[in-house]
């Protein structure tokens, strides 16, 4: 330290900078946190309706997280949602005819994709497409179906 006044000025400058950085970090969209750990191969699947699925939603196999949703877009021809997912490279023996369905964790939880393995001897590889899918369950649709059935019974 050259002298106390100079030292105080440096410390204050550091404090102001740290505070501003903290506010900026809070303002940022946290975009890169938690994604860096995902590495593996990419698979895509088409769904009629993805419900509340978002980027970084988990991909689960028997309830264990094995990957992440990396990208969601609309197929311009079929108007279906195309979900691209990254699956960890150690899970490279998933059968090609595996089934992907969207479920909700609990009543209020976030949505995720559950993979049910099929029986094919060929395995999913980078860039492959899962053809058999089940869309997110929309609660209102089920309720209205149930009500219509009830009405029809009478």
């Amino acid at each position: 330290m050259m002298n106390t006044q100079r030292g105080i000025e440096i410390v204050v400058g550091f404090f102001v900078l740290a505070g501003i950085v903290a506010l900026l970090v809070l303002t940022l969209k946290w975009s890169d946190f938690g994604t860096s750990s995902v590495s593996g191969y990419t698979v895509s699947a088409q769904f009629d309706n993805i419900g509340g699925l978002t980027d970084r939603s988990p991909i689960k196999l028997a309830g264990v997280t094995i990957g992440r949703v990396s990208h969601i877009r609309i197929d311009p021809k079929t108007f279906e949602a195309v979900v691209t997912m990254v699956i960890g490279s150690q899970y490279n023996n998933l059968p090609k005819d595996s089934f992907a369905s969207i479920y909700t964790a609990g009543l209020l939880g976030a949505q995720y994709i559950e993979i049910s393995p099929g029986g094919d001897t060929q395995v999913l590889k980078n860039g492959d497409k899962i053809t058999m899918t089940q869309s997110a369950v929309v609660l209102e649709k089920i309720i209205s179906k149930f009500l219509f059935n009830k009405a029809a019974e009478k």
Partner: protein
Amino acid sequence: MNRVFIALFNGLAALGQGVLSAAAHTGQLFLFTGQLMGRLLPAWTRPKLIVQEIYAIGVLSLVIIVISGGFVGLVLGLQGYNILSKFNATESLGVMVALSLVRELGPVVTALLFAGRAGSAVTAEIALMKTTEQLSAMEMMAVDPLRRVIAPRFWGAVIAMPLLAGLFSLVGIMGGYFIGVLVLGVDSASYWGQIQQQMQPMDDVMNGVIKSLVFGAVIGLVAVFEGFNAEPTSLGISRATTRTVVLSSLLVLGLDFILTAWMFGA
């Protein structure tokens, strides 16, 4: 019969005296605020004084703010996990911790700690300056104490508060991450991902910053006012310090309700 009347009138007099002195105190506060307003910008002609006060008020409060923020985050993480796991919604832990901190706990808890740590110190310092007639001595030398002593301290509080509140929230979110993700096993990507999706930078963070600016101004104003108007005795200094902490804490909590109703209310 006479005695009853006398007791009654004594009670009335005490009530009236209380109201009058409260009114006088409030009036003094407004007059003082008006005088201070005129000195706020001229105080920037000597920025080194303000830097000095940011150090005394802000940097020296860092330790208590960062430690408290960490513990508040840890507790929020634990409590939130307990509640959210009942609904199988622990993925939302991150956003719950982050929003409670950025919207409410960051500004309010920081302000309360700040009033106790820095506000009381400012009041005691100014009150002692007044008691030892340093302020009068300045006036004798044609130095304006409002500009030389009071305004820099006010600026110090206004500048330091939002920065401290931001650090508090950030450390708290880290604390929630530590307990939620590293200890209790919440999914790390969900913790950050939900924060990313649900937190609105402009609404949530800016409202937190506005709140902490307002709290900083209120605490700074109360602290310098109570110090400046303290009775020049040792008892007066102790009373002024107590009043600073009590009054600014109450004002912070009351204003927080008004600001929240204005920002997030219907």
